[in-house]
């Protein structure tokens, strides 16, 4: 089957599967949010300190917060079906604007972190499996265990101390230099330093996850008969290890990579706070404290969709590594 055919089939399947999933997520999140004490009117009242009952009632009436829950849910679903996420009850601006402002930042951070995690994790895991039981394996095992056991945001904070405060190599927060308008390659040169530390903090735990998986899977594969055959027919160890063994060992790694995407994106909330990264995670946190339900629902919905879409990409990767699998 051609790549184009597979991609087309995967996309169709995604749409078919994503619609009920998204519907379920909306209903689940909507009902959860109804359980929260207080609404946006209460938060505004607490902040202004002098809101009258009439003003609060007017705010609630305008946002439709007095309607029965099912009416509110139906209205929300009807709007979402028309790609309308409503507007922020707090700021009055459309939720889609607020999210689109932050989405590119989160996407860049997430994809960089995923790439780092897969790249470094698979590399470390391969070295560990190939040198199993010898010193490179033992040293890396300790390093990997450390990252497997350490909260990513703490890795980020310690990296700030080392690389920003002590050495002064990298900026400690933000996503770009304020007050400059670089063009062309200058944009890249300006932004990449800001990306390094948060992406690493977000990836650190997952580097360890993928390294452990790759090591276990590769050791399993290296025991098999066809590897002995390949060695016996005189191929170099490097070719056997990469072309023959690693390709098969990566199958469980990509499967798990897909399963962990939600966790990876969830980690963004804390990491974005540590690095003042203007992404969706911080938007979600602000929406929770401000009881801005429309924004929160929008973020939950969009980040779930991001997970679904990236999962399809991982599925395609999976099919490319292992042609025996049916096209997803």
């Amino acid at each position: 089957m051609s790549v184009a055919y597979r991609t087309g089939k995967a996309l169709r399947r995604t749409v078919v599967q994503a619609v009920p999933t998204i519907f379920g997520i909306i209903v689940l999140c909507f009902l959860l949010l109804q359980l929260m004490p207080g609404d946006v009117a209460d938060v505004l009242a607490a902040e202004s300190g002098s809101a009258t009952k009439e003003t609060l009632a007017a705010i609630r009436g305008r946002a439709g917060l007095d309607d029965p829950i099912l009416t509110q849910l139906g209205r929300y679903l009807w709007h979402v079906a028309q790609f309308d996420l409503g507007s922020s009850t707090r700021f009055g601006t459309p939720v889609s604007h607020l999210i689109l402002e932050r989405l590119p930042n989160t996407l860049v951070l997430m994809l960089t972190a995923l790439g780092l995690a897969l790249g470094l994790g698979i590399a470390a895991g391969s070295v560990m499996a190939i040198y199993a039981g010898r010193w490179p394996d033992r040293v890396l095992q300790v390093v990997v265990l450390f990252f497997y056991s350490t909260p990513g945001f703490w890795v980020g904070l310690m990296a700030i101390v080392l690389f920003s405060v002590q050495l002064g190599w990298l900026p400690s927060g933000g996503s770009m230099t304020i007050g400059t308008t670089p063009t062309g390659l200058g944009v890249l040169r300006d932004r990449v330093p800001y990306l390094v530390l948060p992406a690493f903090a977000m990836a650190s735990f997952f580097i360890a996850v993928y390294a452990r998986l790759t090591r276990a899977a590769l050791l399993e594969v290296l025991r098999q008969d066809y590897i002995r055959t390949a060695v016996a027919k005189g191929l170099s160890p490097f070719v056997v290890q990469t072309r023959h063994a690693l390709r098969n060992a990566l199958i469980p790694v990509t499967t798990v990579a897909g399963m962990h995407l939600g966790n990876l994106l969830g980690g963004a909330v804390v990491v974005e706070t540590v690095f003042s990264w203007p992404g969706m995670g911080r938007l979600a946190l602000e929406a929770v404290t401000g009881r801005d339900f429309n924004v929160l629902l929008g973020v939950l919905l969009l980040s779930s969709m991001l997970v679904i879409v990236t999962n399809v990409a991982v599925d395609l990767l999976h099919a490319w590594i292992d042609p025996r699998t049916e096209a997803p």
Partner: protein
Amino acid sequence: MEPDSFWQRHRVLRSVLRNLSFVAGMGILGVVALVAIAAPWLFPGDPLDMVAMPTLWPGEDPAFPLGTDSLGRDMAAGLAHGARVSLLMGISAAAIGLMIGTAVGALAGYCGGWVDNLLVRITELFQTVPTFLLVIVLVSIREPSAPAIALAIGVASWPTVARLVRAQFRSLRSADFVAAALVSGARPSRIIVRHILPNALPPIVVTTSVMVANAILTEAGLSFLNLGDPNLVSWGSMIGDGRQLLRTAWYLTALPGAAIALTVMSINLAGDGLNDVLNPRSGSQ
């Protein structure tokens, strides 16, 4: 009786105790647990009270070997009391996640058909929503208190267990001993609990250690963001407080983080050791 019959009967126990990483992990974890249990006697009084000059570096004043924070609170006392919170949170959240996950997975794997379909769909739903976002939403439903936070982390973490248990049940369901139990007239509930579950246990035991470790990490993230129980000192909230002085007094951030890393590492070591013994083919040697 032969003198070594105890060890013959407990082959698993013997090989577990011979496993270096399990023994090392349990050793460190034991020390952390002892500190957690002894915290009220080692450091009497509220760890949130001011006891000395603020921001004493570790070693600066022998009375406070690990220094004090920006409000003059004893770091050592905070760390010891924080150990209670972290361990209790980790264990109770993991227990909740395990119970939900095992119930859902067992039901899906045993029943199959539309029950399986529905439960798998729900599991996928929970796996698609970014976990930490879900925890934040769940935590905000009530005033943050320790039990509510444990419940939130547990509710967000069950899908992994459910998938694992479901796979185990699907393969064990067609085993001969299950058919034998069915023929002898056992009720499905009895087959699930008494026949299949004990055989599905080894991978669940190994996952438990991962669940506890991840629950501790999640709780740390929550209290770092100030979403934890405000009346409790936890390692995460200490990192959050210390972050304000990251540039000048980085030990305030480093120490509680190191405590988390050490504790979670010991749990992971113990879990790896158990995994080596229970699933010898998983390939770590």
